[in-house]
C-alpha cells in the first residue's frame, strides 16, 4: 500500500464508494502517483476476476436496464439527476430519444385519402409511360453474374491449371461433369482452364487471350435445374460481364473490353448449335 493515500480511500475508490468530489480528488492523486495506479489496477483486476469467477455481470458493461449492480445504478442516477436536484423514480436515468424535427407539410398532405390515391396512381402511370414497361422475360440470376465476375477478378490473371489450346483436350481432362468443350471464336485464343467456385456449384473458368494479350474468361457452371435465359449484361469493378443460362449450364463471360464479351456471347450464348451440343453432352 502507498504511504501517501489512506488505504481505506483506495479501497473505497476501487469499490466505487466515494462521492463525486472525493473521487475527483483521488483521481488527481492517481494521475501523479504511479505506485497508487498500480495498486488500484491490481484491486480492480481482482474485482473483475472475482465477478467473472462467479458469473456476475461486469461493472463496466453498459447498463441495459438491469439493476444487478447497485453502485453502477446509483452513479447513473446521479449523472441523470437534473440541476434542480429532483431524483428520477428508482434512481434511473431516463434515456429517451429526442423528438424528431418537425417536417414541413407537403402540398398533397392537405388532400383527402381518395384524392391522394388518385394522384399516386396518375404518377405511377406517368412513370411507366416515361420509362417504359420493365422486361418481363426471365433473366439469369444476378448472383450468377456476381460469381462469374468475382472468379474472373480473382483468377483470370493467374496461370491456368489445365493448359491446352484444344477444347476437346480440356474437356477430356476436366471429367464428365464439367466436360463441356469451350466455344471458340475468331478474335480469342483459348489458353486453358481453371476450377473455381461458381454460384452454387464447382465451375470451370475457361481463359482466353485477345490479340492484345488481355485475358477474357468464361465461367461455365453445371446447374441441372435452371431455365434458359438470354444474356444479362453488367459492369462489375471495371469488368464488362454478361451472364446467361441454357442447356443445364450457367455461363458468365467477363473481360475488360466489352467487345470480347460480346464475341463470347455470340459464340456461345446465341449459338443454338453450341447449346444443343452442350445439352447433348450433359445427357
Amino acid at each position: 500500500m502507498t504511504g501517501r493515500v489512506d488505504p481505506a480511500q483506495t479501497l473505497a475508490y476501487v469499490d466505487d464508494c466515494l462521492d463525486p468530489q472525493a473521487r475527483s480528488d483521488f483521481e488527481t492523486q492517481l494521475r501523479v502517483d504511479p505506485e497508487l495506479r498500480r495498486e488500484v489496477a491490481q484491486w480492480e483486476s481482482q474485482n473483475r476476476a472475482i465477478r467473472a469467477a462467479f458469473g456476475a455481470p461486469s461493472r463496466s458493461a453498459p447498463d441495459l436496464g438491469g439493476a444487478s449492480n447497485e453502485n453502477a445504478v446509483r452513479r447513473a442516477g446521479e449523472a441523470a439527476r437534473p440541476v434542480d436536484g429532483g431524483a428520477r423514480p428508482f434512481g434511473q436515468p431516463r434515456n429517451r430519444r429526442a423528438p424528431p424535427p418537425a417536417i414541413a407539410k407537403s402540398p398533397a398532405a392537405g388532400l383527402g385519402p381518395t384524392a391522394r390515391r388518385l394522384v399516386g396512381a396518375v404518377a405511377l402511370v406517368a412513370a411507366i409511360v416515361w420509362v417504359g414497361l420493365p422486361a418481363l422475360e426471365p433473366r439469369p440470376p444476378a448472383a450468377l453474374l456476381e460469381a462469374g465476375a468475382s472468379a474472373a477478378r480473382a483468377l483470370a490473371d493467374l496461370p491456368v491449371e489445365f493448359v491446352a489450346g484444344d477444347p476437346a483436350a480440356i474437356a477430356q481432362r476436366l471429367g464428365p461433369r464439367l466436360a463441356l468443350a469451350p466455344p471458340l471464336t475468331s478474335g480469342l485464343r483459348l489458353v486453358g482452364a481453371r476450377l473455381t467456385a461458381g454460384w452454387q456449384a464447382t465451375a470451370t473458368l475457361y481463359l482466353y487471350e485477345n490479340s492484345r494479350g488481355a485475358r477474357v474468361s468464361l465461367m461455365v457452371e453445371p446447374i441441372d435445374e435452371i431455365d434458359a435465359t438470354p444474356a444479362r449484361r453488367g459492369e462489375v469493378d471495371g469488368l464488362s460481364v454478361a451472364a446467361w443460362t441454357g442447356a443445364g449450364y450457367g455461363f458468365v463471360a467477363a473481360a475488360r473490353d466489352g467487345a470480347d464479351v460480346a464475341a463470347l456471347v455470340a459464340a456461345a450464348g446465341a449459338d443454338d448449335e453450341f447449346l444443343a451440343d452442350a445439352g447433348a453432352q450433359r445427357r
Partner: protein
Amino acid sequence: MSLVREWCDDAGALRRFGLALVRDDRFVFDDVAACALIDKLFRQASLTLIDSPGADRRAARVRAFAQFVRLYRRHARRLAVDEDGGWVETPPSSRGCGSGSVAVGVRGLPLELREALLLVVLAGFTHREAAEALDLPLAVVIDRLGRARTRLAANMAASRDAAAAWPQSAHLRIVK
C-alpha cells in the same frame, strides 16, 4: 425498469453471493432449496416495504442479504465447534461453484473475510451497506476488506508460482 425486474436481479445477486459464500453443502442441498431460501428471504424483505412506507428497496435488499449471512453463520457455528469451544468452518467442498483458481481462492478465505469481500465485490454493496448487512462498524468492514484482498492476492500469487515451478520440480521416470 419494473420493480419485478429489480427484484429478479437482486435475487440473482443473492444467489451468486450465496453460492460463493457457502462452503458446506448441508446448508443448502440443491438448487430447489436455494431458490426456496432466496424466495423466502426476499418475501420477508418485501414485507418491510409494505409495513414501513419510508423504507426503500435498498433497505430491503440489505435486509435480505443480512438475513442470509446470519443464517449461514448460525449454521456454520452449529456444525463446527472444536474442543476449545471455538468454531472452525467446514473446509471447502468439492461442489462445482464458480470457475477457476480465483473461485477456489475466494472460497478458501475465512468466513469473516469472505462475506465482506463478496458483499462488496460480487453483490455490489457499498462499504456502508456491507457494514449494515454484516452488523459491524464501518472500520471493521474496511479492515476485513483490505485483509481479504491482500490474502487472496497472496494466495493467487503462490498458486501461480507453484504452477510455474511444477515442471522443474516434477520427477520424471525414465522408461526404457
